[in-house]
């Protein structure tokens, strides 16, 4: 029988994978993909908790909000990536280090 734990484990793994991408990838878009993975992991948790612990649709509503924000974030990200590429001819985040101390 598939239970809460299964989903939580999958979620944890996805979270770790996303985190890994965020930390290791140089490319800004790849980092964004990692962020999306993390967000999805969180969403999965929301929905799983909603079904097994909380009951009702609250978790799903939260997940929908997260998806909304992810969409907005992706749109802004695309704009930023284009602007950054325009200026630096690269979207490698380690080359975009004007704020380096």
């Amino acid at each position: 029988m598939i239970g809460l734990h299964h989903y939580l484990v999958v979620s944890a793994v996805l979270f770790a994978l996303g985190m890994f991408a965020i930390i290791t990838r140089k490319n800004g878009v790849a980092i964004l993909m990692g962020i999306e993975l993390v967000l999805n992991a969180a969403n999965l948790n929301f929905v799983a908790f909603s079904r097994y612990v909380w009951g009702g649709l609250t978790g799903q509503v939260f997940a929908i909000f997260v998806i909304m924000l992810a969409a907005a974030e992706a749109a802004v990200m695309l704009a930023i990536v284009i602007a950054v590429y325009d200026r630096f001819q690269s979207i490698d985040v380690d080359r975009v280090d004007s704020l380096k101390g």
Partner: protein
Amino acid sequence: MDLATYVLIALFAPLAGATVQIFLGRRLPRHGDWLCVGVLFVSFVASIPTFNAVWANPAFKLQILSEWLTLGSFGIPLGLQVDGLTGIMLTVVSFIAAFIHLYSVGYMHGDPRYSRYFAYLNFFTFSMLGLVLADNFFLIYVFWELVGLSSYLLIGFWFERPAAANAGKKAFIVNRVGDVGFFVGILLLWTQLGTFRFEEVFKGIAAGQMAGPLLTVTGLCVFLGAVGKSAQFPLHVWLPDAMEGPTPVSALIHAATMVAAGVYMVGRVYPVFTPDAFVVIAYVAGITAFFAGTIALTQFDIKRVIAYSTLSQLGYMMLGLATGGYVAGLFHLVTHAFFKALMFLAAGSVIHALHTQDLREMGGLRAKMPVTFWTMMAGSLALAGVPPFSGFFSKDAIIGATLGFVMAHPQHLLLALFAVGGALLTGLYAFRLMFLAFTGAPRDREKHHHAHESPPVMTVPLVVLAVFAVGAGWGGWFERLVRPPVELPHGPAGAHTLALALSLLAAGLGILLAYWTYVVGKISAGRVADRYRPVYTLLFNKYYVDELYAAGVVRPFLALTRGCAAFDLGVIDGFVNWCGRFTRGVSRVQGWIDFRIVDGAVNLVGNAIRAWGAVLRLVQTGVVQNYILVLLGGVLVILLLKVL
């Protein structure tokens, strides 16, 4: 309109003219000369009702009172008063000034500061009229100083010429010496009597509130002012130099305004002087009258000759006043105003024609300038005291008063000699001038050739003034109007007859000597001069008074100032510089502390922060993932704490 209004119009019309002229003169048609001359005639016309009122009632007295400032119980009054003397002076001054203005239109024609000249002239007249009308010491002092200021401006009118500028300064400074005395006298009166008003002062003195040596000293102090203004010995030195100003200005100064102010003031405050003071005044006046006459004999500058004659005549006026001839002295002031104004204007006419002031370059002008000659002749005769010219009446009265005084006080015989000798000298130098200028052969043909009679605007005033120079002594009108403010001692009865004889004799002798010397040639002026060379040199150099001043006053003063300067530079500046050096030393130490210790501490703090910043900056890599990794580490720690 009541009389006060006329008086105020007469007083303020010249001021209005001056004010308008100084600001707008250059933009007015003809540079505003018509305005300035016009306001003077307005002033003259407005003074006529005053004269009429005084004539109708010699005891007439009008007072216009006002308060200038009030501080608690203490107030300074501003008052004008009109009595017989004022009425005469107001009319005479505005009359003569009006004609001098008119004459100036011709004389000053084409001057670059034509409009400014008339503004000054108006202001001068206003000052003198105010002085005449003042009814208290305070106001008279104010106008006294305004007269001084105006004379300074006008004497130095051609300030491009150093001589004129210096003359202006000299007049002003010498006057200041007298003014200080006047001021001290006023203050003494104020402290003793607590008032400035003439009436109250006189009342107080009559009541014996102030008497004895103090009053004598006060009177002498006041007289010192008159010495300055009226150019009595030894402060006469400015007057000959004042000839550097335009000739109409000289006429105004000598006739109506400046020098008259001193005599008028003495007459106005007559009760202030004690008999002791009068003795001093009489000697000063006598010396002035005689010695100025002797100097006039040797001068060749036509204006200087007349100037010294003025000195001499001023001496007579003072002498008259001092020896009890109150009316005589003031009468001579009035007659002298007419004929001296006439003589200056005539001399101006000659200068205008020849463009020289040197008598040695003149001669033979009688035919060329008949009007000038005849008017000047009238003036000279009046000056010499030849009957029936006006000067005779007044001068005769003065000599009479002097002789009366000497008879009463025989120890003062010298005064009588001064008076009679002065009369002789007057005739001599007056006709020396006339004969040198107008008779004989022209000594400078070039200048003579170009000479011509002056325009009517100049000759008309000459003729008008000549009429008065001739007739001003007739009729005893002056005695009717002017009464001495105190009871005067009557001299011995025979004095007057004797005086008449002596003065006529002296004048006639003087004229005769002049005739012999300069027309007939029996006496050679040059040989006389050679024989008495030291005397001549002494006279020619005006008794070396200027040089004495230079040696006795100016040089010591300059030495004193140099000493003060040395003290200032050496001691005071030295102290100041030492203070500065000391401060600098202290501040250098302070600066060292500031730089080394305070700044060092501040810099230490700054550098420490910067060094730490440099270390901490390494953390700021600019790579987001580094931050996230650290963040992850933090999350791990929190999880560890929570889970385990």
